[in-house]
């Protein structure tokens, strides 16, 4: 299997789907001639032509609204938001139109919105956010967040083939840092199935996206403790059974994400565990997240805000000692 970066795995998955299915097309700001702000669609306009790789105006509501119409008519649009932060401008079309279309009219909306998300590079408050929790509150959308190159390719394929609107969070910090072996050709990573990133017996760290790597690093050698790391991969639908299986085994849980704390994915996972696995718990369910603040520009401040390896170690030690 060839080794690929997380970024080229996304490109590869997208390209494979476009080659195989003529109804798949891309739209977004500067994704054509320029190849995208992060070069995910580099070379696409040469291979697929301007009819299937659209450079759009700077109007996210128009991009997503157009995609909804195309999807209802049977195409499979993949929209790129240049930064996840800009999804706020397209929010109405996504949460009020795309998400509710099947409920109201029985129509499928097989579209994907790609969100380059996350911080860690001094991008400041408009280019660093992790807005996934907004979409957990919008029934009708699916939400995925890969952490590995293999999952990045498999999940973009599943997202494109799914008949529902899917929000695909791709973490910018992983684009060129994460590499891995990626199967050639087309394959799917199923939506709604966790990945056990490492097996363990003493404690479970549940995470997704960029924080999976942080969790693995923090618990690789943690005073000899055996720490299981669960990669959610799919935030909607959540793999409830996959989460509970790990909780039943270790009875101690740290939930870790880069997004802000209140009403986040971690809150949902913690509530689920509290309700469904109360009698399997041997300690409080803990969260390690960003505090409820915007992401600062300043590198030291940003490091203070985003969860770091040491923060995860501290939480795990605290819970292991409980």
């Amino acid at each position, binding site marked *: 299997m060839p080794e690929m970066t997380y970024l080229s795995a996304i490109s590869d998955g997208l390209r494979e789907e476009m080659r195989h299915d003529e109804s798949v097309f891309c739209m977004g700001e500067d994704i054509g001639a320029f190849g995208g702000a992060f070069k995910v669609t580099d070379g696409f306009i040469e291979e697929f032509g301007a009819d299937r790789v659209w450079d759009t105006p700077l109007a996210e509501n128009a991009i997503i609204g157009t995609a909804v119409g195309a999807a209802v008519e*049977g195409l499979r649009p993949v929209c790129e938001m240049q930064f996840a932060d800009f999804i706020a401008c397209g929010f109405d079309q996504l949460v009020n139109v795309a998400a509710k279309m*099947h409920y109201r009219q*029985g*129509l*499928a909306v097989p579209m994907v919105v790609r969100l380059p998300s996350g911080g860690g590079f001094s991008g400041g408050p408009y280019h660093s956010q992790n807005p996934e929790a907004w979409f957990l509150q919008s*029934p*009708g*959308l*699916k939400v995925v967040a890969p952490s590995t190159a293999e999952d990045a390719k498999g999940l973009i394929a599943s997202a494109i083939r799914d*008949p*529902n609107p899917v929000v695909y969070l791709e973490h910018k910090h992983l684009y060129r840092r994460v590499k891995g072996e990626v199967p050639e050709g087309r394959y799917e990573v199923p939506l*709604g199935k966790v990945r056990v990133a490492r097996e363990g017996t*003493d404690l479970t760290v549940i995470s997704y996206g960029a924080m999976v790597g942080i969790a693995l690093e923090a618990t690789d050698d943690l005073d000899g403790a055996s720490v299981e790391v669960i990669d959610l991969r799919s935030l*909607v*639908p*959540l793999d*409830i*059974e996959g989460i*509970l299986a790990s909780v*039943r085994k270790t*009875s101690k849980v740290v939930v870790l994400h880069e997004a802000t704390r209140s009403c986040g994915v971690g809150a949902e996972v913690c509530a689920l565990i509290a309700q*469904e696995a*109360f*009698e*399997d*718990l*041997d*300690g*409080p369910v803990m969260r390690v997240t960003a505090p409820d603040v915007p992401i600062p520009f300043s590198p030291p401040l940003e490091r203070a805000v985003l969860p770091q390896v040491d923060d995860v170690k501290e939480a795990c030690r*605290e819970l292991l*000692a*409980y």
Partner: protein
Amino acid sequence: MSSSPTSQAVEVTMPQMGVSVAEGTIVEWRKRVGDWVEADEPIVEISTDKVETEVPSPASGRVSEILVEAGSTVDVGTLLARIDAEARPGVAHADEGSEPEVPSSQFPVPSPGNGHGPPISPVVRRMADEHGVDLEQVEGSGRRGRVTKKDLLAFLGDKPDTRHQTPDTPAAEPALHSESPYREEEPAPAAGHQLSVMRRQIGEHMVRSIQTAAHCTTVVEADMSAIEAARGRLSYLPFVARATIAALREFPMLNATLEGDRLTVHDEVNLGIAVSLGDEGLIVPVVRNAHELSHEGLAARIKDLAERARSKKLTPDEVSGGTFTITNPGAFGALLATPIINQPQVAILDLEAVTKRPVVVGGDSIAIRPMTYLCMSWDHRALDGALAAQFLSAVRRHIEGWDG
């Protein structure tokens, strides 16, 4: 209260509660022998004839001796208990008080000296119940001596957690977001073609009518001679329509609509006329207040509606609200038909071909006359065959006795 430290023991005595009080009664011991107690933590509850109060411990340490049982009344100054001040904290009872040191934990910790032991986690409580373990027998390694799941497993000799061994684990809750049931439609088969929207609507309407109404068809034969003589360049239809309206005034039960169990007999006649649109289908525009029109007025209205139906210029109001319908495929030579009622009306009259036939007239003579069959389907839920026959006979009477 007074206490006298010895080499290792601190004494707890019955305190002097007031100048006039000479004795006190032990109400309840808050600690047992072996319990850890903090300085100033209540150790015993006493009462005198004036007051009930708690006696704070004079020192931190382990209760080594209790000398007076609850319920006893003793003099002020009597030795009640001894505390070993040099003992180390640890677990003697599962519900023992806390370590003196405040743990550097972010978890909520009961304030020292409230008499509660370290928490028992849900999984430990459940597993102890399942295995019948007295947790006081288990050495705790967790925060403040808490018995952890690991401690319990070690105590059990690594007997596993039984609950999740059995395959009858409760089924998982379904995901909060349900999978869309929508799947793309199968591609249409190569042969044949999709019905037009109009054909599908006609189909739905007809099938619903057949499934709704108790259809029954009654036929009478009518001699069209009088109309033939009067009609000039007009078709038979406006004359038959006029005759039908006259009969409806005599038998208003046919000028009705039935919806569910509710039958409405209408004052005005809104007459539906089926208009063929050729291959496309059929539409039934409605002549409103047809009872106010002569046969000439009817002819003009029917012509206008038919023309606009074929040029697709009818308004929705002009195809709804009918109270009775006439269909007229007779121009194509058919002899008999059993039409389907236009819901929610209760009857539909079918005017078939007018053909010259030998008929018996004026007693025993045979004559050649332009004859037709008037076929009417009616809803047996709303009326019975006798009424249908009477009505049709009235239509025939008006046709045969046409006098303009």
